[in-house]
């Protein structure tokens, strides 16, 4: 029986990189799930983010819900140049699960859901909008202030509906 939930690509970093890209993503699935387990090579907590189809224009936005250990809160970003991912550190690995429902639908903007937990700072739920009806064909993870450490893993799964 053909698998409904398939790994498309996975990598474990053998050298530190500032960004990692899944490219040439086939449009044959219904949804994508990206799982990232990563930490920085060095330095304190800093943001990481995602961009789609090499789009670095102000075509993204987000709303987030977070808990810091002492309080719960929410924030928002409008006309951003990327999908906000939150803090990543060089101590404990971040665990991102990023959901791209109907990623290849060319009639709708793309709504992305993220659950993540940079262990030393927050637990997070994020919804993001990419204002583009194009099918998602590439996803780039970036940390602007450091590099993803050796051993960080990036995995992309496809889910195919009947």
């Amino acid at each position, binding site marked *: *029986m*053909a*698998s*409904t*939930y398939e*790994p498309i690509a*996975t990598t*474990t970093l053998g050298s530190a990189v500032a960004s990692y890209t899944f490219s040439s993503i086939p449009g044959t699935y*219904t*949804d994508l*799930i990206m*799982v990232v387990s990563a930490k920085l090579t060095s330095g304190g907590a800093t943001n990481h983010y995602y961009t789609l189809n090499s789009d670095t224009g102000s075509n993204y*936005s*987000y*709303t*987030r*819900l*977070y*808990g810091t250990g002492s309080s*719960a*809160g*929410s*924030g*928002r970003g*409008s*006309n951003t140049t990327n999908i906000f991912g939150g803090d990543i550190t060089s101590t404990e690995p971040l665990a991102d*699960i990023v*959901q791209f*429902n*109907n990623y290849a*639908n060319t*009639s*709708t*903007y793309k*709504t*992305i*859901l993220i*659950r993540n937990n940079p262990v030393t700072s927050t637990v997070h*739920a*994020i*919804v*993001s*909008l990419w*204002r583009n009806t194009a099918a998602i064909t590439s996803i780039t993870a970036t940390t602007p202030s450091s590099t993803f450490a050796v051993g960080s*893993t990036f*995995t992309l*799964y496809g*889910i*195919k*509906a*009947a």
Partner: protein
Amino acid sequence: MSPLAPLGFFAHPPLAAGDFESISTVTVGAGGASSVSFSSIPSTFKHLQIRAIMKASDSIYMSFNSDTTNSNYYSHWLTGQGSSASASSFAGRLAPVIMAGTGASGFSAVIWDVLDYADANKYKTVRVLTGHDQNGSGEVGLTSMLWKSTSATTQIDIAPVSGSSISQYSSFALYGIRGE
């Protein structure tokens, strides 16, 4: 690296074909739909997952096995509205989904997990990750719903509260997840 199981946990061994199966898919066409239903759900899985994008003209009801008795349902919501976090609860069939309106540019994304849906010894618990963003507005939520019945789930219905419509291009996919 072991692949991620659909409910968000790392599974050993890797998923085999048939562990996560597509059961049924509904995509709303031109003109919208008054409801979306999954019926004759087989009892051969351990859990269910519905993955969706949607817009509707109102909040939505969710009901199981055609049970429309509001006292049989309860939901809890933890949401972020951009400026503050909020917690609330509701008695009744109001689906714990953050709904984008029909005029919104971005659809809501929803992932419903119905755990032990066929277990005759348990009430049914639904865990939801949901949200939409409209570039200056929107909301994201971690929510849950209880259906106080030990019956196996054989049908799930989703419909706007006001009896209006679910928008074109909304899409709902039901998956079954097998246990060992």
